[in-house]
Structures are given as structure tokens and as C-alpha cells.
């Protein structure tokens, strides 16, 4: 649901962007302070699929949390789906996440007692949509990720790969402006991991904007664009020619 009007005086990001990070730093006030992000700027265009790669501790998860408005940067600004995070209240950030951002986590984070269908329907829980409609959309999303035959399976009975498909369906069910995935294949074996990466590529082909964080360079290099992070700074930002 996009409107054409630009917020007067809104940051001068070019149209066609879903996410813009502007000179963001993140300092954790520990002793000594940790500069997890030391000045990062990054734009993600509509329909883009990009991999963020870097060694452990380089700030990847911190970056994802900042992009997903789960954390506010120490300095700099983040603009998601046209909204500047620095100008929004905590409640408004929740609304932004409910409607415009989808998350996929390494640990899946499914509710164990729930069916696959209800786990995916929960992706729409805080939008105020009625349960019946949520389930209907969830069923479509599950069919899309190849789990049409698993709708009524409880989460505990699913394999790791199936769990991650459910989590991906949950992230996508509300057609968010951007999907942020933190190590989505980190808990999966190589073969399952490959199939999940293929699913992500398919969803990208259908128009979804996706950021995938991984410490696996091979996976990151498969994507059209690869951003390398080191010590809280962008080391390289490459378009991969063969896509």
C-alpha cells in the first residue's frame, strides 16, 4: 500500500527505495564501549535481493536489528518504507514492523503448540486483521513455500527446513516492503540450506525485497548484490554480474 506523496522535507532518498540507512553508528555502552556499527550507509531498492556477509562479531545482527527498527541507532537515521525511524515513537515503530517489515531468524522462533497455519497467520496478528482472513492468507503463503500439505501440522512435528519455510511464509504473508533474514540457513544442513536459498531467490524473482545476513560467503555471492561487513564498517558493496 504505497502512496505517491512524499513527506515534505523527508530525507532525499530516491524513489524506488524500500530501505535507506544513513551514516548509522551503534555503540553498546558496555565497558569498554563496543562500536558495533561504525558509520554505515546502505540503500535497498524495491525488489532487490542482497546478501550481507561478514565474520562473527562484525555487526551483521546489529545491522539487521537497526534495519528492522528493533533497535534505534546511536547516531544516523534509518528510513523504512518512507518512514524515518528517528521521528517515530515506540508504538509507531511497532506498527511499522506489523505492516512493512518481515523477519526470518536462524532459530525459526515458531510457537511450538501451534499449527503451521496459525504460526504463519500470526505474521498478521498485530495488523488487526480478522482471524479468518489471516488464516486464509496464511494458507496461500504456505502453499507458496511448498507446505500446502502441512497446514495443520504442529510446529514441533516439522523438520528444520520445513520450520524455516513456515517462518519465511510468516515473514511474507503480509506482503511487507522488506524481508530481513538473519542467518536463515544457520541451523540447516547444506542440502536443506540450498533449498531455502532457492526459495528466497524465487520469492525475489516474484518481486519481494529481501536482505539476507549470512556468514557464508558462497551463499552471499549467489545473490545479485553482496555487502561485506567488517568491524562495523562496509568493506565492499558488489553487484554480481551474472544476475
Amino acid at each position, binding site marked *: *500500500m*504505497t*502512496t*505517491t*506523496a*512524499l*513527506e515534505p522535507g*523527508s*530525507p532525499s*532518498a*530516491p*524513489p*524506488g*527505495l*524500500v530501505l*535507506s540507512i544513513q551514516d548509522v553508528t551503534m555503540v553498546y555502552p558496555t565497558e569498554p564501549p563496543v562500536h558495533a556499527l561504525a558509520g554505515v550507509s546502505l540503500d535497498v531498492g524495491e525488489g532487490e535481493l542482497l546478501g550481507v556477509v561478514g565474520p562473527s562479531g562484525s555487526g551483521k*545482527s546489529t545491522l539487521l*536489528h537497526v534495519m*528492522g527498527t*528493533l*533497535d534505534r541507532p546511536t547516531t544516523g537515521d534509518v*528510513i523504512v*518504507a*518512507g*518512514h524515518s525511524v528517528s521521528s517515530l515513537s*515506540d*508504538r*509507531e515503530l*511497532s*506498527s*511499522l*514492523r*506489523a*505492516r*512493512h*517489515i518481515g*523477519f526470518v*531468524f536462524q*532459530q525459526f*522462533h515458531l*510457537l*511450538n*503448540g*501451534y499449527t503451521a497455519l496459525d504460526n504463519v497467520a*500470526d*505474521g498478521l*496478528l*498485530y*495488523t*488487526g486483521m*480478522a*482471524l479468518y482472513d489471516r488464516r486464509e492468507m496464511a494458507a496461500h503463503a504456505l502453499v507458496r513455500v511448498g507446505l500446502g500439505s502441512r497446514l495443520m501440522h504442529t510446529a514441533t512435528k516439522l523438520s528444520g527446513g520445513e520450520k524455516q519455510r513456515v517462518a519465511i511464509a*510468516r515473514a511474507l504473508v503480509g506482503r511487507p*516492503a522488506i524481508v530481513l533474514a538473519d542467518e536463515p540457513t544457520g541451523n540447516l544442513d547444506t542440502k536443506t540450506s540450498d533449498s531455502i536459498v532457492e526459495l528466497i531467490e524465487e520469492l525475489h524473482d516474484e518481486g519481494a525485497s529481501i536482505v539476507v545476513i549470512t556468514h557464508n560467503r558462497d551463499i552471499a555471492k549467489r545473490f545479485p548484490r553482496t555487502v561485506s561487513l567488517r568491524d562495523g564498517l562496509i568493506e565492499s558493496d558488489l553487484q554480481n554480474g551474472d544476475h
Partner: protein
Amino acid sequence: MAKTDLAPSRLHFGDLGRTASVGLRTRKTRAALSAVGIMIGIAAMVSVLGLSESSKWDLLAQLDRLGTNLLTVQAGQGIGAGSGQLPEEAAGMVARIGPVEATSTISAVDASVYKSDFIPSGQTSGISVQAVDVNLLETLGGRLADGDFLSEATADYPTAVLGSVAAERLGIRDVDDQPLVWLGDQWFAVIGVLQEFELSPNLDRAALIGVNASETFLDHDAVAGSIYVRTNPQFVDSVMDVLPASANPQNPEEIEVSRPSDALEAREAASDAFTTLFLGLGAVALLVGGVGIANVMVISVLERRAEIGLRRALGATRRHVAVQFLGEALLLAIIGGVGGVLLGVGVTAIYASSQGWAILVPTLAWAGGLTAAILIGAIAGLYPALRASRLSPTEALRTS
């Protein structure tokens, strides 16, 4: 970048119930156990109030049947209290008081009662013998278990009616095979067995015989020892005031007047004290139950950090998270409360019907029990809910 709409995060009321019950559905045993404390507390309070109400109702019914207008006149006993005997003319004088509707006298006979004539005379049976007026049963509101009471016809003959305890001691349940008892040194025919006298328990241990029979067969000088007086219910107090002077004009201070129904009321007052005690215990159980719920909720918040983080990522506001956990505590308390009310009503029903009482559970008991449960749930859930809502999303997600 095109600015998208930003309608606020919303959670339907129905979904609130669904999210609040996630913890209960995924951890059923723990939920059940933590609701038990509240359940016991509420059950204790409901059943205590229910039983007290039921027994009170029974007492009122009893008083209603027996009346509160029965008075007993006795000669005072003990040091300085006089002879222990009422003047011969006392019964007649008392009967002449205006509002007095009926009088009935009893007079203790110096004799023992046995099942047979083989028992050595030194051994007493603990059963007294009383020479009584034939209207005694009616005056006291007593009831027969079997047979008949003394009548003008039978009171002249060696016939006896046994109080409930006396009959039991003598092994006589009914009068079907015309039982005899050895009374004084003479066989008496038992013509009736009485039920308990609620207003005059001393007669339960007595064998009652006619005044004429006592004089004829036992050589008894039938001077009234006690007079039972039924008065017009509106003048009970004034009759009590004039009774001593009427019964013994020379020494009114030697006369003791009592109102047997007061004893029943006093018994109820004593049981009120127990009610208060048990209510106090119930309140302690409730408090412990509340602490139990708070404890389980705090643990639940710790264990479910990842879920909290996920919900924040899915767009839950702090308030949505707080309401979810508060709702869970409330649900636990309500489950305990409803269970407690049911248990309390069940206990009341079982005990009351075993006592032959009406089953009464005051609205205050169950409505108050449920309200207390809800309040306790709210208080117990408040702190864990606030803790859950204050968790930052990233902190919550990083834990697992």
C-alpha cells in the same frame, strides 16, 4: 522513497484471549498446578460461607419450629441458692400469668431404670426418672420416634416413655414387642420412644412416667422441680421478668429462669467464630495462591523471552505484550477461581445434605470468590507483565 501508510498495531479482543492462553495451552501441567493454590483458597472460603449459611438456615428453621417462647423455671441450686425445690403452689401461680399459654412440670423421681431385675442395686444406669405432665411433649415441641406419649389414661399406670439416649442405653428401639423396664422395683411398660429434645437435652436421658403413677407405685412426692412455660411470643421478656416472683413470692431470688432457645443461638455464635477462622485460613491460601501465580508468571517471562522478541518483531507494542502476560495471569486465577467455586459448592452440597440441611451458597461467597480471584490474578500478573513489556526486542531475541 514513497511514504507508506502507518495504521497503528492492533490486536483484536478475541486474539487477546488466544495469545493470553498460549502459555496455558503449551504448559498445561504447570498452569493447572499454579491455579490450584487459588482454587483451594476460594474453595475454602466458599464452602465455609456456604456451610455457615446452610447451618444458620437450618437453625432458623429449627427455632421456627421449636419457637423462642419456651421458658424454664427452676429452683436455684448451689450455695446460698436455697432449697433446690420449687414451692408446691409454683406451677399454679405461673399458669395464672396472663400471657402464659401452657405450663408443664417435671419432677425428678429417686429411682433407677434397668433392662432387667438382675442388676445389683448399687449400679446405676445413668438414666433419670421424671414424673411429668401429659402435655410435656406438646409444650416442649418434642417428637416421638415410636409409640405414644403418656395420656390421661396411661399416666395412672406403670407405663414409661423413654428419651432418645435412655432408649438407646436400654437397647429399646421401638415398642412393637411391648418392652418392659425395671423401674424402682417394679416393671413398667414402655409405650413410647422419643426423638431428641432440641430444647431440653436433659430429658433425652430420662424415663418419663405419669405423676399419678409415680405417687402410686414409687411413693414419690411429686413437687415440681422444673416448670416449662410457653408464653405469647410477644411477651416473652415481660413474662421472664415476673416469673421469679410468681413462682416463689417469698424468695424470688432463688428462682432461675432460662430460655432454652438461647443455647441454640449461642451455639451458632460459636460456629460464627469458626467461620471467621476458616475464612482467615482461606484468605491465606488465596495469598499463597497469588504468590504462586506471580512466581510462575515470572518464570514464564524468563523462559519465553524469544517469544516476546518475536512478537515485538511481528509488530506487538509493549502494551500488547503486557496485556498478553497480564491476561495469562488472569486466566490462571479465573480457572482457579471457577474451580474453587465449584469445589466449594460441591463440599457445601455434600456436607449440608449429609446433615439434612438446605444447600445454600450465598451470592457473596461465589461472586466474592471470583472477584477475589480476578483481583489476585491482576496483582500477581502486573509485575511479570511489566517486566515482559520492558524487555527490549533485541535483548529478547538474542537470548536463545
